[in-house]
Structure formats: C-alpha cells, structure tokens
C-alpha cells in the first residue's frame, strides 16, 4: 500500500511553522512554550488550525449526556460526544501541540530576527571520522553496487572483446565488471562553544525578572546550539559571592544580601582558564542583573577583569540588564561608558517581556 500522508503531513507542518513565524513575537515573550521542552523537541501549543465553517457557537449549545448527578451539578471538563473510533469530526476550539525540533525553531528564530550566522573562532580538531561515499571499489556488497558504472565497464569489455552486438544489445556484466560504492573517511572541523550564564540572584531580582532571564536564555541557547556542533552550558549565580549551580537551581534560587558582580566574573574567568582553552572553544559569557552593584570599586574591578582577561578569551561578552523596581541600573551605564568603542561587549536593556525580542537581536545580531 503506497501512502502519501508524509507529503500532506509535511505540508501541514509548513503551515504550522508559518503560523508560528507570524506570531513569533508572542511566542518569544511567552513562557508556556518552553515549559515543555524535551531533549530534541519543543512542544508548542497553538490554536488548532481549522477550516472555518458556519457552525454553532460552543458555549451556548449544551447537549445530552448520560450519567449520575442532580440538576445543577457540574460536569467535569468539556463534554462532547464520545468519538468511538472514526476520524473525529467534532469541532471545537482545541489546542494543537506541535513538536518542533530545535533546528527548526532556530531556523525560524534566525529568519525572524534576521540573525547572521556565527563565524566560529576557535576550532578544535575532533577525530570524528565522517564517512562519505565518494569512491568506487572492485569489491563490495550487492547493496552498494553502482549500476551505471558496472554497466559501462561491461559495455567497454564487450565492445573491446567484440562480443557486443548492436542488433541485440544485451550487456551481461561479469564479476570483474562490478563496481561498488566505497566510502572514505573525511575529517571535519568541529566547532564547540560554551555558554556561561551568570545571574544576579540578590533580593532585588524578583520572579518576573528571573522569568525574563529564563526566556532569554532559552532563545539564546536555541540559536547558539544551531550554530555549533557541541555546546556546553554552565550556570553561575551570585549575590555577594558566586557559585556554580545546575540549571534547575539557577532559575529557582533566591538569595538576599548584597551584590558583588566581580565574584561571578572571577569564577567565570577561572572556569575558562581551567577548562576551556581559547584555542578550542568559542566562549560566550552572559550576565544578567538588575544593574545594582555593591560599590563603584567593585565595578572598577569588573571592568578591569573584562579588559585584561575575559574579553581576550570570549567571543563576545553579553550583559543584559533586567529592569526591576529596586535596581539602580547603574552597572550598564558604567559598562557602556567603559566599552563604548569595543564591539566585544554587548549590552542590552530588557524592560519587560516585550523587550526580550529586541534584546535577543541585540545579543545575537552581531554574528559573533
């Protein structure tokens, strides 16, 4: 049985992606979407795509049911006629869940935000042997037999040996005519990247601010992982002191107390020095905070650290400042003043969820 559902299925997915594209701003600032990510897929809820009909509105209609209950007792959920088996034809405003791979999502992100591809800087030669079927051999399994070449060889032999009859052009290949596809090993340069996320978890960063950071990091991650073969992520939280945590903790921790940004930068620098040699890694430190630092002195220290060490190691250093009620927002000004001329430092202000879109473009729009 030959079925062509794949074609229709692909077409449907194209339509879905188109819908996601046209509502992309909304998806970027919504958290529901990334609540459901799995290893390779993101499950995106969207209104079901339906062909509109003249039909009855659902809320007015009601219907007939069977079961226990007094007058006025509520029914669980949305009742609709049980659909025993056949393809459903019940209308309704149900949600569609669409699985997109990260590649597909990154592709949409890239197109929507017009993000340039990143030119990888460090390249680490990995002896991952890629097999490429480029050559021909005299021996091989039948499944790899190269029909066309085999035919040509046989034809050549028959013509040269005079057994070829144009009236009856039957070509019979013998064993030595056989040609088989064969592979060669090719080494491909593989680029790797590490993203070091740093976040201020002092008291002034509220839940909304963290949610913004969570969304922002999701999109950054989606994009960068589409650009590099291997990608590692590290998470550092800091208040007055910094420590490395896992992703879960990163977004959940809330500390009170002061803020020493330099603590995080020092830890990140230490990480780079010890584990990520510049020659082999593309390094992306991201720092999110509400812009409050303990002292001008510490800010000074941060700037020096960036200048002397981190900027030399990193592809680009990104700082996102999330607006909060409490933060003074001084830090971004200091950075901008110091690095006005330096395109290795990207700063971005994120006022609210709607600002995420622009901010991602700030960070990733430079192609670094």
């Amino acid at each position, binding site marked *: *049985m*030959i*079925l*062509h*559902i794949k*074609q*229709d*299925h*692909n*077409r*449907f*997915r194209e*339509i879905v992606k188109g819908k996601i594209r046209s509502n992309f701003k909304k998806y970027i600032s919504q958290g529901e979407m990334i609540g459901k990510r799995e290893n390779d897929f993101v499950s995106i809820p969207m209104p079901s*795509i339906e*062909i*509109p*009909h*003249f*039909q*009855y*509105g*659902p*809320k*007015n*209609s*009601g*219907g*007939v*049911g*069977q*079961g*226990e*209950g*007094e*007058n*006025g*007792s*509520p*029914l*669980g*959920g*949305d*009742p*609709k*006629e*049980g659909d*025993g*088996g*056949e*393809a*459903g*034809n019940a209308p309704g405003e149900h949600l*569609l*869940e*669409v699985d997109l791979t990260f590649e597909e999502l990154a592709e949409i992100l890239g197109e929507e935000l017009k993000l340039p591809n990143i030119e990888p800087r460090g390249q680490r030669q990995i002896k991952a042997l890629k097999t490429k079927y480029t050559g021909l051999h005299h021996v091989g399994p039948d499944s790899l037999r190269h029909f066309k070449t085999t035919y040509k060889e046989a034809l050549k032999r028959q013509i040269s040996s005079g057994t070829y009859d144009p009236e009856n052009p039957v070509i019979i290949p013998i064993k030595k005519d056989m040609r088989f596809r064969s592979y060669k090993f090719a080494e491909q340069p593989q680029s790797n990247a590490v993203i070091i996320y740093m976040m201020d978890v002092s008291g002034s960063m509220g839940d909304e601010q963290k949610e913004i950071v969570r969304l922002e990091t999701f999109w950054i991650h989606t994009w960068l992982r589409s650009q590099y073969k291997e990608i590692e992520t590290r998470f550092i939280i800091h208040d007055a002191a910094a420590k490395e945590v896992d992703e879960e903790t990163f977004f959940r921790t809330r500390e009170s107390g002061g803020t020493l940004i330099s603590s995080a930068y020092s830890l990140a620098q230490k990480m780079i020095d010890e584990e990520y040699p510049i020659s082999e890694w593309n390094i992306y430190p991201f720092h999110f905070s509400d812009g409050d630092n303990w002292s001008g002195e510490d800010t000074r220290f941060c700037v020096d650290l960036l200048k002397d060490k981190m900027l030399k190691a990193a592809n680009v250093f990104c700082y996102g400042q999330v607006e909060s009620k409490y933060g003074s927002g001084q830090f971004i000004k200091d950075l901008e003043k110091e690095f006005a001329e330096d395109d290795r430092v990207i700063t971005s202000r994120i006022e609210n969820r709607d600002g995420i879109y622009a901010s991602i473009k700030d960070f990733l729009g430079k192609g670094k």
Partner: protein
Amino acid sequence: MNLPPLYVKIQEEIEKYALDYGLDFFETIFEMVDYDQMNEIAAYGGFPTRYPHWRFGMEYEGLSKRYAYGLSKIYEMVINNNPCYAYLLEANELVDQKIVMAHVYGHCDFFKNNQWFVNTNRKMMDEMANHATRMRRYIDKLGYDVVEEFIDRCLSIENLIDRHSPFIKRHKEGDITSERTVQLLKSDHGYMDSFINPSDFIKSQEDKIVSEAKQKQKFPERPEQDVLLFLMNYGPLQPWQRDVLSIIREEAYYYSPQGMTKIMNEGWASYWHSKIMTQKALKDSEVVDYADHHSGTVAQQPGSLNPYKLGIELFKHIEDRWNKGKFGKDYDDCDDYLAKKNWNKDVGLGRNKIFEVRRNYNDVTFIDTFLTEEFCVENKMFVYGFNRRTGQYEINTRMFPEIKKKLLFQLTNWGQPIIHVMDGNYENKGELFLEHLHEGVDLQPNYTAETMKNLYVLWTRPINLKTVMEGQGKIYRFDGVDLKEQNIDTGPGPQPQPSLGDDV
C-alpha cells in the same frame, strides 16, 4: 496486507454466523495494517487514494500523537463501498480481531441496507482515486498553492449541502410558463361586464400574475440549501474551480449518510458484535478479554453521550418491546404503570422490528420514534448546558421531553446550522444573500466572519448573511474589505420562508 491464514479461517467462521443471523452485506475484504498505516488511512477518511491536502496531514498528526500517548487507538475501520473494505489493526489480540470482524459485518449490513445509503456511490474507492487524479492534474497545471487555497475555500462551506436532496426532487422540471393574461369570465351581455368582471377583480388577478412573475424572476426561485450546487451553477468560476468544487461536494454527500446515522450505525454494529460473540464465536478463554473490550466500546464518559452505547441500548430496547408486544393502541392507552411494566404478549416480533428499523430510519427518526421515557430513566440521560455564571457545563434537567428535544436538535441536519441561499442578486447588485434558519443557537461569530470571507472569494461579490445573535436579528455583510453588521427587526430583504421539500 492480506489476512494471514489463521485470520482467514476466523473471518469465514464469523461471516457464516453473520449470514445465519440474516445479515446481508457486500463482499467484505479485510486488510491487516499496522498502527501507522491505520492512522494514515483514518486521516484520509478511510480512502488511501485521496487527493493531497494538508488537513489530512493534520488529522494524521493528531491521530499519531494520541496513539503515541496512549489516549486513543483505532481498532477498526470500514469503508462503505462494494466490496466493503475493512482494516484490522495488526497489534490487536485474536479476540479483539474477532470482535472487530463481527462489528464490521454489522456496519457492512447497515451500509448495504439502510435507505439513506441507497444513493451513495458504491465504487467510492475508485471515485476517490479519480478525484485525486483530477486534483493532481490541476496541481501540476496551476501549482500547489493555487489549488490548495481554492480547496480550503471550498471546504469552508462543505457543510452547506442539502442532505435530503438525493431523495427529493426540489424543482419541477420543464416548468415552462407562457405569457399569461387575466382570464375574464364569460359574459353574454356587454352591460353585465362590469358586474361579472368587476375592475377590482381584474386588478387583483393582474397583481397575482405580476407577483408570480416576480417569483419567477427571483434567483434562485426558491431558497436553495445546497449552497455548493448554487455556486457551481451560478458562481463565476473557472472550469477547474467548478470541478474542484464538485469533487468537494460529491465527497460531502458521500459522507453525509454516515453522519446522519452515526448512532444507529454504531449501535447496530455493536448489537451484532455482541450477539455473534456471546452466542457463537466466543471461546471460554476469551470471555474476560471480550467483556473488557466490549465494555470499553460502550463505556460512557461521565457526562457525555456515546453513540455506541445509545445505539445498542436503543436497539435492544426496541427488540424487547416488540418481543413483548409493548406497542400499539392497547399499550399506549394503558394507564396502569405496573401493567405496562410487566406487559408481555409474547409476540416475538423483536428481531423483525430491528431489521425493519435498520432499513428505514436515520438518527433523527430513530430517536424521534423510539426514544421513550422509561428508556431515558433507565439510561440516566440528562440535558446539560453552559452556565455563564459559574463558567461550566451543568446538568439542567432530566425531563423526558427536554432530553428528546435537545437530542433531536443536536442531530437535525447533522448538527449543522441550516442556511439557504435566498437571493443571488440581492438588491439587484449581484450580491449573495444567505439566511440562517435560527433555532435558538447562535452561530460562532469568528468562524462566521471567516467563512463569509471565503464565500466572497468564490462569489466575488459581497456576501450577506441574515441571522440572529443574542436575540437580535442581524444582517452581516462582507464586501471584500470589511465586515459590517446591521440590526434588523423582521426581515427586510427576501422573506424567510424556507420551504423544506414540500415543493413537489
């Protein structure tokens, strides 16, 4: 894939039982498919040869996902065709396959014998393939996007068909009317003229002729429920567009009887699978699995209506009544509750009656005729509605008349709103005027607007729709750019007089 030998044997066995019971069906061809093929075929509405369209892909995605998450599984599928095609799911257990086969023979019998299926194309498998060929030809010629967009528009109005039209002649053919003049009554004496043919009589006769002529000029002459047909006949369509529209229409009519007999069809099939299994085919070792499966099929979700359950129970109810003679004047006139309850004349007409019912009824007439109060009580039926105050669905009542009324309303016209083309030259501007026969339930506003936009593309002139929203009569008008609404009291525009098949 053809059936493995073991299953062929079982099929022959069950087919024999079915024949012995008096079921009558086309030759039935079973095929064994895996879950993915099953989902694919189901997505195509049972026809693997259908034309390409994304909505089948969407259906497939939904089915595959629900299957993957274990939410639903299609056990069987059967196609109304001669021969009947039925698909079995490979992964099912033997006892399940037996049930499914017995169930399928029930469906096949119903397809062949129920009068509503009489006009369906029994070579639909081939016809669908022909449709696909035609569609592909247009796609090759005009491009996928163009054809797809047009299909989308047509599908948007595929429910606007006249489900009874295959059975009723709506229009008198060859209705040629010559010029008519007022026929004067004969008078011998000139001076009597003004008395025998008084001037106001002549006037009224002339008026009548004029108004009849006006009626003739109306376009369409009578309200047309088959909007697709109207567009095919009068819409400014290119030949390929007309053909695509005719394909969509033909398929809509093909599926229509299945929608009209869902409860009966499933009930009938369930009735027979349980009869065949419990009385003939079931082995001792299979009883538990059978019971499990059967109860799953007829299970009621709390607060919703399972057509399998309602159908099988109603058939059993009818059989029981006619076995005991619980019908006719004596029974109806009897006031004694106990006597009625224990009524048993032992007439044994049950089996005959249900065969008669399966031939002559559809869901609406089935419910209308055979739903009784005691049945509703026994089956704990109720009417629910949406309570705006609490924002949820609640049980409204268990009164029999209400239940029946609601159920019939749900089923009438397959639960689709009834919409007629009233005027194809509205206000003499070539606009389309549609009227929704409002029966207490409003149309879904956003869908209505979108559908009107699609209609506009087909008709290329503004679309007017008369309906009622929240108690207020309205005419919506889409002129290609904006959707405007206008409140009305009672019908300006063509008079609402939807004639439902009483014209012949």
